[in-house]
């Protein structure tokens, strides 16, 4: 195949999917976080929303971000790639901003969220995950 021009109309499935190899591990971890963040946010909002509305809205937002990231990483195609980038970037900004605020102004976050203290309650995985996610997305950028 060396030296021959590949037909540009031929789709290159390898380039346009992110659900193989290391991507599978990434999706699996995102799925676990989607599940636990959704359960946690649902529980908080159902039982004690009034105590800390901001923290609980953030929990729900985090849950949505993890769900979107899980689904978009598993789907092929350029549009889903863009959705993945947006979701993972939102996650990175979320964990950095919420982590910093919870560190310097703990009063604003009387209740923990997934992202509080840069995800310390979850072994800092919420901080590492978006970085690995962006590296993986960069590697599988659609041409």
């Amino acid at each position, binding site marked *: 195949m060396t030296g021959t021009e590949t037909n540009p109309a031929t789709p290159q499935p390898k380039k346009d999917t992110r659900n193989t190899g290391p991507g599978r591990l990434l999706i699996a971890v995102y799925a676990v976080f989607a599940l636990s963040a959704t*359960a946690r946010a649902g529980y908080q909002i159902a039982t004690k929303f009034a105590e800390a509305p901001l923290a609980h809205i953030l929990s729900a937002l985090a849950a949505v971000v993890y769900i979107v990231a899980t689904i978009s990483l598993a789907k092929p195609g350029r549009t889903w790639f863009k959705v993945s980038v947006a979701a993972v970037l939102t996650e990175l900004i979320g964990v950095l901003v919420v982590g910093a605020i919870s560190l310097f102004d703990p009063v604003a976050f009387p209740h923990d969220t997934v992202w509080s203290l840069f995800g310390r309650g979850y072994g800092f995985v919420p901080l590492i995950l978006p970085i690995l996610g962006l590296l993986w997305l960069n590697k599988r950028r659609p041409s």
Partner: protein
Amino acid sequence: MDGYFYALLIVGLVSTIMCVVAGLMKKAPNDPTIYSVLAVELVLVVYLVGSIIRVAMGEQIAGEAWEFWGYLITALMIPLGAVYWAILERTRWSNFVLAAVGVTVLVMGARMNQIWY
């Protein structure tokens, strides 16, 4: 922490270590790694049956009962989901997916113990 937790601790850690080592050795999921994850599932099934018996015998769950059962039922689905996901693509990376099962279930087991007592 009760016996169920320690069973999950040991079986979960052994499974995670086995799967990580197999992944590092660039092996695809094979019988030992898949069976190690199914062993985690077996412990969870015993946990489920044991918990149903304990509640039926009149024991009280200290925390929220629905939270405990929610964790347990979710935990029961994780090993099966991971094995299915790993069999679909048998590469070394799927062993790392399987490795995540042991630690995840272990953390959930710790939380289940907190709720129960």
